[in-house]
């Protein structure tokens, strides 16, 4: 069996030409054959989503998803990719919970729908009871050995939770009170899912970042791995999608997205967005899609019920208000003669602090304030005898009055 170190190396490099899943499966099959590790049961639960992760896995050509579910794990339930139907299919879920507690892996695809006790997302019926997504999730997660959330929806809510989020969609970790391994992406790359599941099977939990994402896949930004990075550094920018050059100006979210797409690539390691001239849309970002939309704009809009707020427009409005404010103030400054008066007075102060007439009692009050403050300062200084940088600075240029 591969050592963990070899496994990680495989995940980050060798995958490129061969395909991670391809290499892994034969290694794992061998480990199973030699009885080095047990083959864990797996329940695949789909909640509020588009089935993108299953399709992404299904797109993996060699080996296909069937081999994956049979060779790496013992698939017990996947509403779409299993042979059993109806009652018997659901029965498999309950049997797995009962017969393999703390052994089975739960993979969740899709966000948890929470509005109105979750009743917009019914996942199955058992013993004449309808189970909502939340019910099913809580029930199955309780006795699972590992919970893996695949896709941005399951991990963080994703597109299902996009503004205004009428269904109250949230990520899995927000609903269950235990650690969830997040494998984001919209959809998640087949390698990310296979790799994480394989790691969990062979070595347990992989090393995770602060969002509980496996570091082996989400440890660096797209921008740091991108082929067009040299164009970025030298300032060669595309002004339209499809042009050569870095896509930063057409809204590439590579700098704020952690994933290894540039080296792993998609559709069986054929290509990835930037190489085809489309900017990264940040689909593995925890805030996707609200925090990365519009996709062809550098900074995201803030969504409000009235209108999306565009950051560049806000910047321009702020600039215009300042310019207008200063312009009109300057006009009045000239017209009222205040400016002329100020400038004519020159650089000699006419009284205590300003050339404006100051009420006598205000000056006295302020003087008293100052004396009091000075005394307090003196007392404090004597108390702690602190010879800080400030004392030295004040010695260098003493505050107070000098006669000339």
């Amino acid at each position: 069996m591969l050592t963990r170190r070899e496994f990680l190396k495989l995940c980050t490099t060798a995958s490129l030409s061969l395909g991670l899943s391809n290499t892994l499966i034969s290694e794992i099959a061998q480990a199973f054959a030699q009885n080095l590790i047990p083959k864990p049961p797996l329940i695949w639960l789909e909640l509020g989503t588009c089935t993108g992760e299953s399709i992404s896995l299904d797109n993996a050509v060699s080996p296909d998803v069937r081999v994956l579910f049979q060779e790496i794990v013992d698939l017990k339930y996947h509403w779409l990719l299993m042979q059993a139907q109806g009652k018997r299919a659901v029965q498999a879920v309950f049997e797995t919970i009962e017969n393999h507690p703390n052994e089975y892996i739960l993979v969740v695809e899709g966000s948890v729908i929470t509005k109105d006790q979750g009743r917009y997302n019914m996942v199955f019926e058992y013993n004449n009871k309808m189970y909502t997504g939340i019910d099913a999730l809580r029930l199955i997660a309780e006795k699972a050995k590992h919970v893996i959330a695949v896709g941005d929806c399951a991990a963080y809510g994703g597109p299902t939770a996009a503004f205004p989020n009428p269904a109250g969609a949230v990520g899995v970790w927000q609903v269950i009170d235990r650690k969830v391994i997040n494998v984001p992406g919209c959809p998640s790359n087949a390698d990310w899912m296979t790799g994480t599941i394989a790691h969990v099977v062979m070595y347990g939990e992989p090393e995770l970042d602060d969002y509980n994402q496996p570091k082996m896949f989400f440890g660096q930004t797209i921008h740091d791995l991108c082929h067009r990075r040299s164009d970025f550094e030298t300032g060669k920018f595309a002004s339209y999608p499809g042009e050569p050059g870095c896509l930063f100006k057409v809204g590439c979210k590579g700098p704020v997205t952690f994933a290894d797409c540039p080296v792993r690539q998609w559709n069986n390691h054929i290509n990835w967005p930037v190489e085809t001239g489309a900017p990264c849309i940040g689909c593995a970002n925890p805030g996707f899609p609200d925090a990365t939309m519009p996709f062809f704009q550098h900074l995201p809009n803030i969504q409000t019920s009235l209108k999306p707020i565009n950051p560049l427009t806000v910047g321009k409005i702020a600039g215009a208000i300042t310019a207008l404010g200063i312009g009109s103030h300057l006009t009045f400054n000239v017209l009222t003669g205040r400016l002329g008066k100020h400038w004519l007075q020159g650089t000699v102060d006419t009284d205590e602090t300003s050339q404006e007439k100051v009420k006598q009692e205000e000056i006295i009050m302020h003087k008293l304030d100052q004396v009091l403050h000075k005394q307090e300062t003196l007392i404090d200084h004597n108390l702690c005898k602190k010879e800080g940088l400030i004392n030295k600075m004040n010695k260098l240029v003493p505050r107070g009055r000098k006669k000339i």
Partner: protein
Amino acid sequence: MVKNEKVLHQTLATRLFHWTLFFTTIFLIISGFYITYPFIQGLPMRTIKTIHATSAFIFMSNLAGYTYYYIFSKQWYHIILSWRDLREFPGFLSYVFFLRKEHPFYGKYNPGQKLIYTSWFLTGLGLSVTGLALKFKGPMLALFTPYLNISSLRLLHYYLAVYFAATIPIHIYLALTENPVKLQAIFSGYLRRK
């Protein structure tokens, strides 16, 4: 009051801090907004980022020094907004908008100046924290998880920069038009009384 008296208005420390602040913020704003919209084809981003990072480093050191100075010299009450300033604010605004000819004596800085300086202190802190998180990612980003992700931090950094960039011209305009006495004091340090 002594005639023709020379009074120290800005210590060497405040002058040094002020002009360092001035140069770093100008560099940061220009390089920062250039990152938002790099409009010159072929101008190396690497250079712009180096300028931004270098000025940011000096900016943060300056901010730390400034804060240290104001805390330990016990002069912070000059530039930090207080409740009393808030009460005086309406009167001050009527002076600013030409409804009154004069304003009472407020101390070293008026409530408007204090409001701006206090807000800049907070903005500077915010820019430093979000900027460091954008630069060093990993451990710094973890501070904000799960409330702010890297994308929202970048947006926040941008909005704080917009605030900075929109308020600095007001400061410069008023410095140039309000009181030439104080304007020269930020260079020379001293005021001369009549």
